[in-house]
């Protein structure tokens, strides 16, 4: 029974990992082939780094990820603080469920619905290009917001609500109490939320596809265009680098999370 379940796990994880491993392997291929391995070389990484289009796409992706994560973190943290204090349960319920709409809806519907809005508004303003960096920023911030709110909310719930009151008893104004006590308490959640938002933005393809214009394209869109044709191993090198970046970011987020939970277990309330 035990051997059977172990064999089952190895089989499933094998199927899950082998395709990606092969892709990584072929990014180091000496030959210009994605079918047979001729020997180890960094040739395709060299070619990738001399590819100007890929670099523009990478730069765009990073700019967009930083901006949308920052915007979502500010709006999302404020939203979490506000939603935590909401008393009217109907308003709270409505805001809560609307917040989750971008996570529940199929990505293609979220992408299309925003595109239709942007195209309509662009048509009203007689813009030649209604889709741009700004429409992508709006779209990415929208799907990032739930991740920030879901990371900050639990920290607010865990926080002893008497702490800000104690700070005010000790002479803080409400503003000082927020920045010295409350913000300090929820900061781990805010940072995790910001990192999640950054990663989600880096990784997004479907919503980006519908909200991007011709003059601002991100890496996933670039990959989409590249894979419409037969690809060369330098695209594999790009894949490998992207996987490495996302992997490191998510690993960091996970380590932070497990660090926090063990801190809570050990520390308790001081």
């Amino acid at each position, binding site marked *: 029974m035990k051997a059977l379940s172990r064999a089952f796990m190895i089989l499933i*994880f094998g199927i*899950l990992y082998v395709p990606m491993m092969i892709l990584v392997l072929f990014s180091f291929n000496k030959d210009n082939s994605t*079918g047979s391995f001729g020997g180890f070389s960094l040739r395709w990484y060299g070619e990738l780094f001399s590819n100007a289009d890929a670099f523009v796409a990478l730069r765009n992706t990073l700019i967009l990820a930083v901006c949308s994560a920052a915007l979502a973190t500010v709006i999302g943290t404020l939203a979490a603080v*506000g939603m935590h204090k909401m008393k009217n349960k109907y308003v709270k319920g409505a*805001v809560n469920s609307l*917040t989750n709409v971008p996570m529940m809806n*199929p990505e293609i519907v979220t992408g299309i*619905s925003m595109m239709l809005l942007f195209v309509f508004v662009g048509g009203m303003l007689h813009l030649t290009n209604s889709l741009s960096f700004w429409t992508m920023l709006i779209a990415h911030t929208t799907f990032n917001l739930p991740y920030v709110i879901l990371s900050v909310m639990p920290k607010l719930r865990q926080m002893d609500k008497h702490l800000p009151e104690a700070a005010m008893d000790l*002479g803080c104004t409400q503003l000082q109490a927020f920045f010295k006590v409350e913000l300090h308490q929820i900061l781990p959640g805010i940072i995790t939320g910001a990192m999640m938002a950054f990663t989600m933005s880096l990784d997004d393809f479907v919503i980006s596809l519908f909200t991007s214009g011709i003059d601002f394209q991100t890496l996933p869109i670039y990959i989409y265009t590249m894979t419409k044709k037969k690809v060369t191993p330098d695209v594999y090198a790009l894949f490998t680098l992207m996987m490495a970046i996302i992997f490191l970011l998510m690993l960091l987020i996970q380590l932070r999370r497990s660090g926090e939970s063990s801190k809570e277990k050990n520390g308790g309330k001081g």
Partner: protein
Amino acid sequence: MNKNIAEAVPPPERKRVKLPIFSEIAAVPHMVWLALFVVLPLIFVVYYAFTDIKGDFTFANIAALSQHAGTFLTSVCYALIATAICLLIGYPLAFAISRASAKRQGLLIMLLMIPMWMNLLIRTYSLMAILDDGGIINGLLSAVGLPELHIIGTAGAVIFGMVYDFFPYMVLPIYSVMTKQDTRLIEAAYDLGCNRLSAHFKVTLPLSVPGIVSGITMVFVPSISTFYISQKLGGGTKELIGDTIERQINNPATRNVGAAISLVMMILILISVTVMNKFSDDDDKGGVII
């Protein structure tokens, strides 16, 4: 100074000026954002679905849906099959992981989550590179003298792609429900005469229903709306509803039809998710009564 004043004032009279920014008002930017960029866009889907290219009201887009009924049905079938396969493999895997030692559980869940983080395009493409006519599998087959297989472009390849891409989304929710279960319930079932199998089906399985339901939702929704998987693994011959939507919406002349298809898809998904959630809620209550 301030401290002394605070101490001097007796508690009931201690009234503070509450700055609105730290109350519910803080959520206002988010609420405005939701209204503008979540609710309004969805209204625009409805608007486009019921208007023609000039902006006049029409039912023509809805009527045109019948042309795409076949594609829709194919998508539903593929997504259902993929979801069923994910459940059949995912449930035992979640169970096996939840029974492993605590240290190993962490590692296995990590291994399951890593592919989930990787870009969907890359994962799908890696699968195509293997299954393709000149790919690894066919290379291996011809090396041992077997005839090559034409895999890309078959329904099986598309469904396999869906399972491969979304499988972890089935395992994680089931696993998280299973680890929260009280193991004493199983012991109680043994005491009451159950064997391992009947204890599983009478205790573990019913208690896992909420996880199964969210797993099904998390696999079915992206499967039915995908277009990249069918483009790459369907070899351009297997069109799914996602492909139809993408094509129609990107052409200004057929944009309104695309909006109508998205609207119908969204409503169908909404209904099935609501029904599913109700089902799991009812079972939750049933579980408590038992």
